[in-house]
C-alpha cells in the first residue's frame, strides 16, 4: 500500500513537470511578452526611467534568454540571474501587471478559491445524494418528476444569469451588499470575527450558483446509477434476508453507486475552478478565476503560469484522493493491487 502511494507520488511529480513545460510553452506561443509590449508602449511615450526598470526586469527574469532556458529558470532547475529561484524554490515569480510578486497578488485568492469550491462541492453532495435517492426509489411519482424538472432547469440555466438574478434579489430582500466574498469596507482588515461572519454570509450566493449545475448533473447520474443497482440480484438478496428497505438501500445499492462519484472527485475540483470564472467575474469574487483570465490576456506569464500550475496540482491531488478513497471503499480494487 505504502509502496503504491510512493509510486503514485513519483508519477505525480513527473506529471507536474510535463504539465509545467506544456503550460510554459503554450503561454509563450504568442509573439512578444508583457514586458516587450510595455517597453514599446513606453518608448512611444518617452518615459525613460520606466523603460530602464522594465529592462532591469527583463534581465532579472532572464526574458532575454532562449525560451527553454527561461523555462528551466522559471521551474528552478537552472540558475537565473539571481541564482536558483523558481517554482521549486518557492519563488512564484513576478506579476508585471500588478508590479508585485505573484505570491502577494494571488495570496488570499488561492485559499478563498479553495473555500468557495470546497463549499460548493459539499453543497452539491448534500443536496444531490438525498434527492437522487428519493427520485430513484420513488420512480414515476410526482416527487420524482419534480426533482427531474428542477434538475433539468438547474442544468439549463447558465450560472452567470442565475448569479445576476440572485444578486439582485439578495440585495433587495436581505440587504446583502452585491458581490465579493466579504463586505467591501472590511477589505483591509485582518481576519477577525466580523470579517469571518461577513464571509459566511457572502458565501451563500456563490455556493448556490456554482453548485447548482453540478447538483443537477449529479442527481441525474446518481439516479440512473441507483436504478441500475436496485435491479441487481444482491439487492433482492438483502430484501429476502429481511432487511428493512432503507437499511438495505443504503448498505448495498447506494454504496455500489458511489464508486463513479468518488472516481470523479479528481475532475470535480479543477472543473469547478475553471468553470466558475464567469460566475466569479459577475459576482466579483476575489478568486483566482478572474486573475487567470486577466493574466492570460495580458501575457502576464508568471502569474498565468503559476495559476495554471496550481489548477494542475489541484487536479493531481484530487485524483490521488479519489484513488485512495476508492481503494479504501472497494475491496475489488484493493485486492486487484496484489
Amino acid at each position: 500500500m505504502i509502496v503504491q502511494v510512493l509510486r503514485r507520488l513519483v508519477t505525480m511529480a513527473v506529471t507536474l513537470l510535463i504539465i509545467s513545460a506544456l503550460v510554459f510553452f503554450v503561454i509563450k506561443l504568442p509573439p512578444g511578452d508583457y514586458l516587450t509590449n510595455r517597453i514599446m508602449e513606453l518608448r512611444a511615450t518617452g518615459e525613460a526611467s520606466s523603460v530602464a526598470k522594465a529592462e532591469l526586469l527583463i534581465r532579472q527574469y532572464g526574458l532575454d534568454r532562449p525560451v527553454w532556458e527561461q523555462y528551466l529558470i522559471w521551474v528552478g532547475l537552472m540558475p537565473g540571474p539571481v541564482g536558483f529561484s523558481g517554482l521549486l524554490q518557492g519563488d512564484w515569480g513576478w506579476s508585471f501587471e500588478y508590479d508585485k510578486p505573484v505570491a502577494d497578488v494571488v495570496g488570499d485568492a488561492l485559499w478563498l478559491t479553495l473555500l468557495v469550491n470546497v463549499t460548493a462541492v459539499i453543497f452539491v453532495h448534500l443536496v444531490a445524494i438525498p434527492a437522487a435517492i428519493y427520485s430513484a426509489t420513488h420512480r414515476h411519482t410526482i416527487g420524482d418528476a419534480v426533482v427531474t424538472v428542477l434538475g433539468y432547469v438547474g442544468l439549463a440555466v447558465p450560472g452567470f444569469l442565475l448569479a445576476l438574478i440572485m444578486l439582485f434579489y439578495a440585495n433587495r430582500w436581505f440587504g446583502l451588499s452585491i458581490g465579493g466574498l466579504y463586505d467591501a469596507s472590511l477589505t483591509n482588515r485582518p481576519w477577525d470575527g466580523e470579517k469571518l461572519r461577513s464571509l459566511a454570509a457572502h458565501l451563500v450566493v456563490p455556493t448556490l450558483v456554482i453548485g447548482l449545475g453540478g447538483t443537477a448533473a449529479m442527481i441525474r447520474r446518481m439516479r440512473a446509477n441507483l436504478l441500475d443497482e436496485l435491479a441487481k440480484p444482491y439487492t433482492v438478496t438483502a430484501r429476502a434476508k429481511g432487511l428493512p428497505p432503507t437499511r438495505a438501500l443504503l448498505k448495498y445499492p447506494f454504496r455500489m453507486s458511489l464508486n463513479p462519484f468518488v472516481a470523479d472527485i479528481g475532475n470535480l475540483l479543477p472543473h469547478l475552478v475553471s468553470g466558475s470564472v464567469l460566475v466569479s467575474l459577475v459576482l466579483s469574487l476575489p478568486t483566482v478565476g478572474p486573475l487567470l483570465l486577466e493574466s492570460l490576456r495580458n501575457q502576464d506569464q508568471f502569474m498565468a503560469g503559476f495559476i495554471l500550475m496550481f489548477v494542475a496540482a489541484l487536479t493531481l491531488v484530487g485524483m490521488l484522493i479519489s484513488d485512495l478513497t476508492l481503494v479504501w471503499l472497494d475491496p475489488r480494487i484493493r485486492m486487484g493491487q496484489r
Partner: protein
Amino acid sequence: MSALLSIRDLAVAFRTETGRFEALHGLSLDIPRGRTLALVGESGSGKSVTAQAILRILPRSAEITRGQMLFDGGEGPVDLARLPEDGSAIRAIRGQRIAMIFQEPMTCLSPLHTVGDQIGEALRIHTGADRREADARTMEALARVGFPDPERALRTYPFELSGGLRQRAMIAMALIMRPALLVADEPTTALDVTTQAQILALLGRLQDETGMAILLITHDLGVVANIAHDVAVLYRGRLVESGPKAEVMRRPGHAYLKALIEAVPRFDMAPGERLTPIRPARATIPPAREAPRLSGPVLRVEGISKAFTLRAGRLFAKPRIVQAVSDVSLTLEGGRTLGLVGESGSGKTTVSKMIMRALPPDTGRILFDGGAGPQDVHGLSGDALFAYRRNVQFVFQDPYASLDPRMTVRQILAEPMEIHGVPQAARRERCRELIAMVGLEASALSRYPHAFSGGQRQRIGIARALSLEPKLLVLDEPVSALDVSVQAQILNLLKDLQAALGLSYLIVSHNLAVVDYMADTISVMCRGRIVEEADRAALFRRPVHPYTQALLAAVPDPSLDHPLDFAKVTGEASDPARWPEPFRLAPEEAGTMVEIEAGHRVRHGALATQKAA
C-alpha cells in the same frame, strides 16, 4: 399434520407497456414439512414468480391479484399474501422462517462486503445479536456448509471464492436462522457438474439435520430425480402435474412433462438418436456441400502451454505464476467434433482462446489447415491472419452479453462480412440466408436482440459465426445458459449445420451429456492437462481415469434408476496428488499419456511408468 405452506388460487399479474399480463393464473400447491418439492418448468412458466411471491419480493411492476398463501411455521397460520408490503410482519418471516438462495451466487452477494458481514447480517437484524456473537454463529454456519477455514472465510470477499464456495456461502446465509422453508431458485444451474453434485448433497444433508422443507425451482430433471421428494410441473403459469416423484417421473401424464424428458441429452441414448425439441424449429438447412478434402486434420494443437503471472503485492515478493495450460495436444479431423471437457479452472477456455489467437501460447504450436496445407496459427500475419479469422469463428456461452443491444440483427450479422469486404448486395442476400438457416423469420433482421429469447439469441450468435462461411467453429458452452427446452433445438441445429456445411466443431463444456451428444472424440482436462482422451463411445463405455469417472458420476440422470452416489462427489477427484496409482501425480509432475486401447489414452504418473518400464 397440515402443510407448511399452502398456496391457494394464487394469481400474479405484471403491468407492462402493452397492458396487464398475468404470469400465474390461480396456482394451488402444498409444500409439505421436511420434504423437498421440486417446481419444474421452463423460463416464463412462472416458477420464479411463485418463489418471489412467497417471500413477497416480487418486482415493483408485479402484484398479487388474488389467492392466499397460508404459512404455518409453528406460530399459527399466516396468510403471506395479505401481509403489508415490506412491513415488519413479512420482514420477520423473510430470512428467519423462510429463506432463499438464488441461481447466480456471484451477483447475489455484494462484492463490497465480506462474506462474514453478509451472512451474519440476518442474525443481527432478527435477533439483535452483536457483531461478536454474529461472527461466532457465522463461523458455525460456514463450517456446517463445508468451508475449510471458517475463520478466514469470515473476512473474505465473494469475488475471492470459487462458484461452489460462493453458493455455499449463500446457503450458510439462508440457513443461519434455521428457517422452516428454504426456497432454492435454480441453485446449481450456474455451477459445474461436480460442484452441483456437492451442493445437492449438502442441501440433502442439511435437510436431514434441520428438518426444513425445500422448495426447489429448477428446469433440470436430473436434479429433480436426485433430490426431490415431490414434483410439481408448471406450464405457462398453470400447474399441469404434481405428486410424489416416483409417480410423476415414471408415468408422466401431461404431454409437456413427457416432452421435457425427451428433450434432455442422456447417456443411454442410442447412437444416432436425436433429441426431440419441445417446440420444433423450422430451420432451412442448406443442401449438403462437399467439404474440401484435407490430407490431415483441420486443426492440430501440439503441446501448447500457457502460464499467467499474478502481480506480487509486496515490494520484493516474487510474482506468483499460475500454469493454466500445460502441454496440451489435440487433433480435430475435418467435419468432426472434438469435445473438450473439464471443470471451471481446468484451462479449457484458455486453450480455446489460444486457438482463436486471442492469447499467445508460451510453448507449442497450433496448426490449422484451411485447404492449403497446415499453417502455424501464431506465425500468421497480414493477409494470412485475416483469412484465418474468416475460417475460425466463435460461439459464446452467454447469448445475452454477446450481442450488442444497440445493433439490429441485420447489423450484427453483416458486421463480420463488412469487415471482410463482402459487397453490400451480397451481404443483404447472405443475411436472409443465414437467418433462415438458424430457423428465424426474415422479419427478425430489423429487430434488436432484446426482442428475442435466450434460445433465439443463441441462434443469432450461431448465424453471426457462420456469416463468413468458416471451416471451424469453437463453441464455448453453447447451451449451458439456455433452458432445457431450447437446448435440444440448438444442439440439433448445430448437428444439422455441421452435416450440411462440412463444419468442424471444437466444443468446450463441463456438461458431459451435451458433449456426449455432440462430440466424436473427447479430451478430458484437469488442472491444465489432458488426463484422458478417447472416442466418444469408448470413453463413456469405459472411463478409466478417476477424474473422468468422477465427472461422469456427478452428472445427475433424469431417470430414477441411476441415482447419484453423493458419497463419491467429494471434490477430491480434481486433486492429482490424491488420485490412486497408477494415476497419481506429484505436484508439478507431468506424467505420461499411456495408450490403453486404440485411440484411448490416459495419463499415468511417473511412478507407474517406471514400474512398467
